């Protein structure tokens, strides 16, 4: 469907290149920094990025808030930073995001009745695979070790004896 994705632009790559060129031209040896408002406090910035890596960018959906260059992601990162400056804990900020955007913002979905299949589905499939494997192996083993009737045993013994007689 035609929908605006909050000015999400494909220029992030060219922007990055331009930024790299600029930073290498102006300040050799200094790593390129993100264009987001620079925080004076590197520890806080580290906390912002760590938490942002747990949150989904609603616009790009398969990027985290930390990775995304979408304007909304920038706004939300600023919101996270602001809340942290005000002394909010990580879980308070996560609750803040979930209250607005739902569980979908979480890259690690919470354990709930509706998400049980999500969490245990792969384990169930693995267990089912083991059951199938086990049954096949047992069936094959049974086929390789057939029961012999008394007459069959007798015939086998005769054949073996005959062979030995021939060899002699």
């Amino acid at each position, binding site marked *: 469907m035609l929908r605006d994705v909050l000015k999400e632009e494909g220029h992030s790559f060219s922007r990055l290149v331009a930024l790299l060129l600029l930073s290498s031209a102006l300040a050799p040896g200094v790593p390129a920094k993100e264009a987001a408002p620079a925080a004076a406090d590197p520890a806080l910035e580290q906390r912002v990025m760590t938490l942002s890596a747990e949150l989904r960018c*609603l616009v790009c959906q398969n990027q985290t808030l930390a990775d995304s260059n979408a304007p909304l992601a920038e*706004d939300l990162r600023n*919101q996270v930073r602001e809340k942290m400056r005000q002394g909010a804990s990580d879980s308070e900020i996560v609750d803040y995001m979930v209250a607005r955007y739902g569980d979908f913002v979480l890259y690690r979905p919470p354990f709930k009745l509706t998400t049980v299949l999500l969490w245990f589905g792969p384990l169930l499939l693995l267990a089912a695979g083991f059951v199938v494997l086990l049954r096949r192996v047992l069936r094959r083993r049974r086929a390789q070790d057939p029961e012999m009737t008394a007459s069959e045993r007798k015939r086998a013994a005769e054949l073996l004896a005959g062979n030995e007689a021939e060899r002699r």
Partner: protein
Amino acid sequence: MNRFILPLAAFAALIALLGVGLTLNPREVPSPLIGKPAPHFELPQLHEGAKTFTEKDMLGKVWVLNVWASWCVSCREEHPVLLDLAASGAVPLYGLNYKDKREDGLAWLKGMGDPYRLSIYDFDGKVGIDYGVYGVPETYVIDKLGVIRYKRIGPLTREIVKDKVLPLVQELGRA
């Protein structure tokens, strides 16, 4: 023959599951705001920046809040539907001009017609965040007690207005 039935059935089930998945729109994230009180805001109006508007002004009325922006392409597509909805007088329609330049927003309304009783001006998008806006346009139906009853992410269409918005507005108006 028998040994093929189980894998075949499993495969068919998988195809059915993926087929259903294809019909869903991954961008439509269910909003946790449905059934919750509309988040508080007090914002300047777009036309008269000195005046403010808050959701509390609308207590006791059923109303529709539409998030729009002049840079939003789908809003252009949606605009005639909003004009018709406003002209029908079925429900008061308010706009939230989201992360826009004031002059751009005003020019848009001047050029395309203004369906809103008034628009509020959310320059930094903070109120947008409180309302869980992530794709413009978005539309909220808010009841007399100030509770969000419906949210549409993406442009309203005539079908949605006729089948969802208007029946809900009528039902809420009776309550």
